[in-house]
């Protein structure tokens, strides 16, 4: 059994290796040319989102699709339905494998608009990764995936940008490209993957990836640590602050209040 499994793996691995060797132009992974600026975003007390710039070099005549993808997590949602003539939450739907953030931009926006499920970018590609469980029937999945996208777009967490990645004049046989996007104020702290796919003759010939780190710092970080790690102390502190403020304001207004 063990030997069969071993040879089975070998049989799969060899053609896979040959396929990779037969595609010398396909470069997959971190690129020295792909630059994300800033690569670390700090969420401080006065965070108003962050403008992020991504630059790279692509071959002449090629197109590019840039994606910013957050870590996948489970989302617990309620579906609405009509009961007794009223619109109510009628059941739970859990969404699995959906990224916390998804943003896409291209040198040619048509690439994103017309993205098919076979393409590894855009919403159709996301649909193949996302699964649903709970009170949802198979025929309803497409409808609720659309609703999920609509919800995420309204929260500013999923965006297909209409403005294209800018191309600069050719330099040294390569075209410098620059994509700019705004990280929303409700972006979660964590690690985000920024990838730029190079497309030639309708297929991806290279995919360069970089990392974008988002972290809470200073006062928000202190409050979040207290809230999530010392809930009881945090709750009592919140009540004490509220009572002291209530009394203080009451005392300040005492002179004008009368009896």
């Amino acid at each position: 059994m063990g030997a069969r499994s071993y040879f089975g793996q070998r049989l799969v691995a060899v053609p896979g290796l040959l396929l990779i060797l037969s595609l010398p132009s396909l470069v997959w992974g971190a690129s020295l040319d792909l630059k994300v600026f800033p690569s670390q975003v700090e969420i401080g007390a006065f965070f108003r989102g962050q403008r992020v710039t991504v630059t790279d070099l692509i071959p002449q005549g090629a197109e590019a699709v840039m994606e910013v993808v957050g870590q996948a997590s489970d989302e617990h949602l309620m579906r609405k339905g009509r009961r007794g003539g009223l619109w109510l939450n009628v059941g739970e739907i859990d969404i699995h494998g959906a990224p916390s953030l998804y943003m896409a931009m291209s040198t040619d926006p048509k690439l994103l608009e017309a993205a098919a499920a076979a393409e590894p970018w855009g919403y159709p590609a996301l649909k193949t990764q996302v699964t649903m469980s709970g009170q949802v029937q198979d025929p309803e999945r497409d409808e609720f995936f659309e609703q999920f996208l609509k919800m995420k777009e309204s929260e500013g967490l999923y965006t297909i940008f209409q403005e294209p990645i800018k191309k600069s004049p050719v330099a040294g046989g390569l075209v410098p490209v620059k994509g700019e996007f705004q990280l929303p104020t409700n972006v979660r702290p964590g690690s985000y993957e920024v990838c730029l796919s190079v497309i030639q003759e309708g297929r991806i010939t290279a995919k360069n990836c970089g990392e974008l780190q988002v972290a809470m710092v200073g006062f928000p970080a202190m409050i979040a640590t207290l809230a999530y790690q010392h809930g009881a102390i945090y709750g009592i502190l919140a009540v004490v602050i509220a009572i002291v403020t209530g009394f203080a304001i009451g005392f300040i207004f005492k002179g004008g209040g009368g009896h």
Partner: protein
Amino acid sequence: MSWSLYLPVAGNSINILLLFGLGGAVGFLSGVFGVGGGFLMTPLLIMAGIPSTVAAASDSNQIVAASTSGAYAHYRLGNVDFKMGLFLLIGGVIGGTLGVQLIKVLRAMGNADFVIKITYVVMLGVIGGYMFVESLQALRKKPAPEGRRPEPAKVSVSRYNRFIQSLPYQMRFDKSGVTLSALLPLILGIFVGILAAIMGVGGGFIMVPVMVYMLRMPMHVVVGTSLFQILFTCINVTIMQAITNFTVDLVLAIILLLGSTLGAQFGVRLSRRLKADQLKILLASIVLIVMVQMLASLIIPPHLMLAHKGGH
């Protein structure tokens, strides 16, 4: 200068002036009517982009400050009946515990949302409608002096009085100027506590009419006593939410409470200038507006067919 401030638990940035204004407006109503304002503030915060669970929990925290400020101001005016407030509070805690269990059962049966929404609409409609009509009639007939108790129909008064007098454990509540059974505020407190737990609010807007119409307390004592009772209810809710759900955003609560405590002071001043029936008709109007808005959201097809769990 940037007026945006990051809220670490809500996970979003929001304009400080907007939050301060919201806090001030709701605190003002709290001071005028003796209601916590949760039934107004939480939906407004959700509209401003705060997750519903964080909005409800942080609102409880700011109500602690607003009701401290308001209750203190009313205490100085001699408007808090601590004895009555204590019975209502004990009943409210018992009722709240029962209500939470009831919601658990309803959730298991899949009927929780229906019951919550219908309870909201019916309670707001009945309380708002009754208060509005009764106050309007009183204002049309004769201007009632400030703090005077309402005078419902004579037949029902005598029946209700006989019922109250027949109950055991009769007790004098000096500050409210009434003698009634200690069981009455306890039972009514349980009733309001159950409703408050089902609706996820402090229950001030139910407690105020209960005190006025069923406990026959004068309006000015009702407001102060209601704020005293709400204070303790919201202290409990804030600590429980911080420990179990991690949904209290201290930064959000502090900005709201700065606005609401200031607003509450101005509200208390206005409440002293208005007559009891004027106060009631204003509160009734606000309650009815919220009821209509909620009813509309139930009838009009929603923009999105999905919502985050814990929201409305």
